[in-house]
């Protein structure tokens, strides 16, 4: 297991360094191949670890492997160690498997771009960082990975660095994530102060034994939640994700849908003993998830950018995962993470096919009737949409309904709120995703864009083989991945995670199937609503105050601008005018002027007359000699 873990972690790093060091000695194509190969080697490592673990007893599947002691400060020791257990193996498989497919897809999608080597190096680097996050054997290594994926995300969102909006989106993502990182780090400081260690075992032991006071546990859990919410783009730290769509589409698929944004869910599952010791915080996570899934769902109803619609649906689906993790249905949350990785990557990559075909067009008002021209894309996109809406047998059906059933089983005011809210979210999901599907693939054809000789072959067929094959694999996954968990029949996914993630609630089989029946009915109603609106040629949300609010995404950006950004800028300007210029700059100027004055004074003594110098030396030596004589 340990060997597989190390191979999995280091292969993408080697790929990244190889591309970085090779520079222009390898062609762009080769850089893409190196990157793809390194991620797939990582996948092989993950599979090896998985198979190895499968052959062991369930209690024996946790392995902590230490490379060396990273640093020591008194009693506080941090070791460079990997934790390979069923949870991290699931994440490793998702990150390298889906990641490998997306990097392979990029070989086709990015062909003809400038600076592909940089792109592929960053992609390999991201996969390494994400693996560091999920495999790190203690909280500090997790924080290292946490920071590195933020960096990779920043670099890739800003990949088109000559586009101002991309640079600003990258900056926004980085700043919001940095706020989350800082909150999380504060939680870690508290842990170091009160527990003296960041090892999972020690921290969880302290949380479970009640050794820490309630206040401390609550604050630590809040710190972890802050980090999770920022990374996973949940309210109130969600504003960066829609803007992050400025990056290349495969980046959106890999980082902002399938892997990085789900890190928050992973974090809650990984540190569940801490959250269980602070149930209010855990419930807060569920409530934030619910609010996000509803807000993102309604905002998605009015968006016109194909990628932004999918981005909001990502936020909304991660909201479901937070709901699951927040009520203690960790296995279901992870299962939704798993299936979501397939169908969301699929949706983004098929959107990439559409965008590629239309020469970079992302506005759905300029699309339409693509079903006839791109049958393959149409079929795969439909699979992704059905999986997202939760229509049987597609993947989302099994995982989303399981979370809702768990909310029902949890009961109480919270459970029922989450249940009803989640069902409402399912309705919204069906409406916005089928609105997108109908507008893009049905109706009248949009004119084919003018082909100006550039990248000629892109307009024939539906994309290169790299792209169509990976999309096909993901479509298979989005169709069948859900079958790993059929309520009452077999539940290998849950059984696999059971040793690490003991769920707090387990819905009965009747609750699961009942919820599924309701959710599917609601989904079909949503589809019907979207279809009727599309047929009648009207929007789902009529013009008016509501629509304006939605188009402004509930004024979050404006609010943050007014509350944080503008005061901060005003303060900065003030400080520059009143402190920087007079004190710092002025002080330096005065030091410089003083030095000059002193120099011109002393330079007057330098007459150039040799004999004066000789006299000065003589007098000085005589005086010194006298002084020595007298003093002695």
């Amino acid at each position, binding site marked *: 297991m340990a060997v597989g873990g190390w191979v999995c972690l280091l292969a993408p790093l080697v790929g990244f360094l190889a591309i970085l060091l090779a520079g222009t000695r390898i062609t762009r194509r080769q850089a893409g191949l190196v990157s793809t190969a390194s991620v797939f080697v990582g996948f092989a490592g993950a599979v090896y670890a998985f198979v190895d673990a499968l052959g062991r007893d369930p209690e024996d599947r946790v392995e902590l492997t230490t490379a060396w002691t990273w640093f020591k400060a008194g009693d506080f020791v941090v070791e460079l160690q990997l934790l390979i257990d069923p949870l991290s193996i699931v994440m490793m498989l998702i990150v390298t498997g889906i990641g490998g497919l997306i990097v392979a897809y990029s070989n086709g999608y990015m062909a003809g771009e400038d600076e592909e080597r940089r792109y592929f190096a960053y992609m390999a680097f991201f996969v390494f960082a994400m693996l560091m996050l999920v495999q790190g054997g203690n909280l500090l290594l997790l924080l290292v990975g946490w920071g590195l994926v933020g960096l990779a995300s920043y670099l890739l969102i800003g990949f088109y660095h000559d586009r101002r909006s991309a640079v600003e989106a990258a900056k926004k993502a980085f700043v919001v994530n940095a706020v989350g990182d800082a909150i999380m780090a504060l939680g870690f400081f508290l842990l170091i102060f009160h527990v003296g260690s960041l090892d999972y075992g020690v921290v969880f032991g302290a949380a479970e034994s009640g050794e820490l006071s309630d206040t401390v546990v609550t604050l630590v859990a809040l710190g972890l939640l802050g980090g999770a919410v920022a990374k996973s783009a949940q309210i109130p730290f969600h504003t960066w994700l829609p803007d992050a769509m400025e990056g290349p589409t495969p980046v959106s698929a890999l980082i902002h849908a399938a892997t990085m944004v789900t890190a928050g869910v992973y974090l809650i599952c990984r540190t569940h003993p801490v959250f269980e010791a602070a149930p209010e915080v855990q419930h807060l996570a569920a409530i934030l998830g619910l609010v996000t899934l509803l807000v993102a769902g309604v905002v998605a109803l009015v968006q016109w950018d194909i990628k932004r619609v999918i981005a909001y649906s990502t936020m909304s689906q991660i909201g479901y995962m937070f709901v699951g993790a927040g009520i203690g249905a960790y296995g279901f949350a992870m299962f939704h993470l798993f299936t979501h990785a397939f169908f969301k990557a699929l949706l983004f990559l098929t959107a990439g096919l559409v965008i590629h075909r239309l020469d970079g067009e992302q506005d759905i008002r300029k699309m339409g009737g693509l079903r006839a021209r791109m049958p393959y894309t149409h079929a795969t996109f439909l699979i992704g949409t059905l999986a997202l809406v939760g229509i049987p047998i597609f993947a989302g059906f099994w995982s989303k309904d399981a979370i809702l059933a768990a909310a029902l089983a949890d009961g109480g005011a919270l459970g029922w709120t989450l249940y009803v809210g989640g069902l409402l979210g399912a309705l919204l999901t069906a409406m916005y995703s089928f609105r997108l599907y109908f507008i893009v693939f049905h109706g009248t054809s949009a004119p084919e864009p003018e082909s100006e000789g550039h990248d000629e072959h892109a307009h024939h067929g539906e994309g290169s083989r790299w792209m169509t094959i990976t999309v096909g694999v993901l479509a298979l996954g989005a169709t069948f991945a859900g079958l790993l968990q059929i309520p009452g029949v077999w539940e290998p996914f849950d059984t696999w995670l059971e040793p690490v993630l003991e769920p707090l609630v387990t819905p009965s089989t009747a609750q699961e199937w009942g919820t599924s029946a309701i959710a599917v009915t609601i989904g079909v109603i949503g589809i019907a609503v979207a279809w009727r609106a599309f047929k009648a040629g009207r929007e789902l949300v009529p013009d008016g105050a509501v629509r304006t609010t939605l188009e402004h995404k509930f004024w979050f950006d404006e609010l943050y601008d007014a509350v944080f950004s503008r005061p901060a800028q005003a303060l900065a300007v003030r400080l520059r005018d009143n402190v920087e210029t007079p004190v710092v700059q002025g002080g330096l100027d005065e030091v410089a002027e003083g030095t000059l004055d002193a120099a011109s004074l002393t330079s007057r003594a330098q*007459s150039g*007359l*040799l004999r004066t110098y000789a006299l000065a030396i003589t007098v000085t030596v005589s005086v010194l000699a006298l002084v020595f004589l007298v003093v002695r």
Partner: protein
Amino acid sequence: MLGPDVPWYLVVSAILFAIGIAGVLLRRSPLIVLLSLEIMLNASNLAFVGFSRLFGELDGQIFALAVMAVAASEVCVGLGLIVAMARRNLALDVDRFTELKG
């Protein structure tokens, strides 16, 4: 011990050194300045040898030899410079060379 006591040597050395300083400070001809420098160096040599005798060790005498070598090289360079100046018809006056003033 033959000859006068060691302190007398030191007195002579001090007188010679004072003469040298006076020459450097008062005369303007580079040639004389160079000459005065030589006198000062030899004054120090005399002091070295005197002390060497006083303590009965040879270190001082060896150092005196080193000083002679330095003095010889210095004369070479110094005289060379003076000859070069004379050839260019420059005034042989140390007070006229003030390019290095601040």
